[in-house]
């Protein structure tokens, strides 16, 4: 099993979600995150005082899939989340040792 974490732009979330469900992804976890890469932050002004905000808001999707499906899922995210501008985000892929469905106790690929 693989866990695929994709940090993407907010406005791409719906598009990516729809595309992933069409390629067979049955579940995902989404969270609001803040961070920076090459895009860096932005500046804000309050009554003449300027603040540099380093952390840009993004959305992180977490998807767990079978090993064979991982490449397709990654390609789908790459295709749908891309704008071509700096700040599109990143995808991280990790090997997952175990997954368990709490209701039934099923483990491994049966649980996802």
């Amino acid at each position: 099993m693989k866990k695929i974490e994709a940090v993407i732009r907010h406005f791409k979330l719906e598009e990516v979600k729809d595309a992933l469900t069409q390629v067979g992804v049955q579940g995902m976890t989404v969270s609001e995150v803040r961070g920076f890469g090459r895009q860096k932050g932005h500046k804000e002004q309050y009554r003449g005082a300027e603040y540099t905000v380093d952390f840009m808001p993004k959305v992180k999707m977490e998807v767990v899939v079978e090993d064979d499906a991982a490449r397709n899922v990654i390609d789908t995210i790459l295709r749908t989340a891309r704008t071509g501008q700096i700040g599109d985000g990143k995808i991280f892929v990790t090997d997952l040792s175990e997954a368990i469905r709490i209701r039934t106790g099923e483990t491994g690929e049966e649980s996802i």
Partner: protein
Amino acid sequence: MSQRARRLAIAPALVFVFTVVFGLWNVSTGYGQETPEGASTSSVTGESPREVAAESVAELTESPAPAEFSEANMAWMMICSALVLMMTAPGLALFYCGLVRKKNVLSVMMQCVTLMGIMSVLWVVVGYSLAFAPDIMGGFVGGFDHVMLDGVLPTWNAETGQIETPAAGTQIPTLLFAVFQMMFFIITPGLIVGAFAERMKFSAMVVYSILWGLLVYCPIAHWVWSDNGWLCEWNEAAAFPALDFAGGTVVHISSGVSALVCALMVGARYNYQKEPMPPHNLTYTFIGATMLWVGWFGFNAGSAVAANTLAVNAFAATHLAASAGVIAWAGMEWLTIGRPTILGACSGAVAGLVCITPASGAVTVPSAMIIGLCGGLVSFLACTKLKNAFGYDDSLDVFGVHGMSGIVGALLTGVFASKSITGARVGLIEGNGAQMVNQAVSILAAAGMAIVGSVILLKLIDLTIGLRVNEEKEIRGLDLTEHGEEGYIFL
């Protein structure tokens, strides 16, 4: 006795002392049995609204005729009193708490609501008397004739078998006038809170506000609004009759200048200009600012002390000045940093409102728009340039907005005052340059009093209970360390 037990004993002890003092005062004055001397009633007159408004702040008349009250005026003044109270909380409280960091959001709200309690009681006990009773100390301050609102409250006349209600000149009970003025006494120290936000001890704030209210606010209010005040516009014998319709000098200059003194003496926040301290919730600030705008109608139009044509002018002038203030501040931001901000627009509205406060009963609506524009512009420059140039930490820009716009408003009142509104006094444009001198003297007097009073009080507090919390408490935030509560509680 443990420290906790001692603390628990303080509250009932205070209630007991208060009750005893009140009881003794009742016995000594005969309150509730017969009419105090001089607390008679008013009669209806055919005077102009301006004259009537002026009389309302005067002492009670000696007419023996029963009071004839205007239900319209009473209704209007009760609404205005409520509007002015709304300015402190939720208005000012939300405006300020949105501007601080989230670890201090409750401390600002707590200071506002505490002032509503303390200053109200203080006003009844002695504040009203110091501001509006006949002179003592060579005209410096009012005496103690109206302690516990003696001569203001309704009384039972055993001889006539009737309730007698002391009345002010605009056919409202004097008690209603005292209540309206009470709301000003609450919000003025409330404004100062913004200067030392996020670092001052709650106890120090309480002591400072009480002493400042009695020793700084009451004398200035007496000079400007009391019958015999040396700055009072309707006192024929006043040395420098200054125009201050709704409190530009009494409220905004006194609080704004005191705020600057506080910012300097309390010192900058920990890591000021080293770590970011942006507002934590500008939606609160927007709600608070717009509530202030609405409340200001009570503040300014209520200062006519009647539902009359003068109140209508003050109402219109207030709104248009605030509108012009928004345009000025947001426009300056658009020009200088490339985009207008919500904080800028809100700040501009408040600056415009402050600037028109002394002038709202003296200038026409077009003049009010010019005054509002000037207020927005000057306060914008004060907050963005002046503060950075001098490096003081006036946390929420009380001096920049209230102090500077108050001073500019007081001066421009002397420029634009028009006979078409006042019926009497005019400003520079209508040929009375001397009014500018009166305005300047009133500004210097109020600012001087605020500086001297605040320096002495803050020094005394610093030497006794201390002015600010320690570094560790400041870093953790005043909500937890001063009040044991959190504004935002999540899982």
